[in-house]
């Protein structure tokens, strides 16, 4: 039931049948790479109706090695975060 990147590429290739499937494949890969680059560089992504991607800050903390129980200092970091847009929220929620 899960849709993968290659299935997404196939369904777009079927819809854009006037374009070489190779171009659809590279376009999807370019888009995903471009989004990863932007986010890794700290740039937000805002797609109306779909949602926005941003980074959330995680302050430094003391973690623990689960095997030894030893405490390990962990540096601060950022983690990617996605907030679905209104249209996506509404379409997904069947209630």
């Amino acid at each position: 039931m899960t849709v993968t990147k290659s299935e997404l590429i196939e369904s777009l290739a079927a819809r854009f049948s006037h374009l070489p499937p190779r171009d659809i494949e590279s376009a999807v890969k370019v888009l995903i790479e471009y989004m990863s680059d932007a986010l890794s560089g700290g740039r937000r992504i805002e797609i109306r109706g779909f949602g926005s991607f941003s980074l959330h800050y995680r302050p430094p903390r003391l973690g623990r090695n689960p095997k030894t129980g030893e405490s390990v200092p962990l540096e601060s970091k950022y983690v990617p975060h996605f907030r679905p847009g209104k249209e996506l929220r509404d379409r997904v929620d069947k209630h």
Partner: protein
Amino acid sequence: MALTKADMVEKLLTEVGLGRKDAKELVDEFFEAIKSALASGSPIKLSGFGNFDLRDKRQRPGRNPKTGEEIPVTARRVVTFKAGQKLKARVEQSRLEPPPHQRDESAG
């Protein structure tokens, strides 16, 4: 400035050599395909980027923050995103500065 669909269209013009009309439609259809898969109940896995999953939430107690009135938050289905290992690693490796309000603490 945030990355938008307009930037993505420009990227497809220069990197894939698509025409503007095709590039614009493809960017729209890329997001539409993800939205309609999720709307039909299928999660999405974009390897290297992350997974969009669906979660069914039960009804829970809630409150109108303005009036304090108790109103239940109804049961709903929501989209969650879990970044993949590759994206998480890239974000961590870019070693961005902490946000301004955190800088003093983390410098110590």
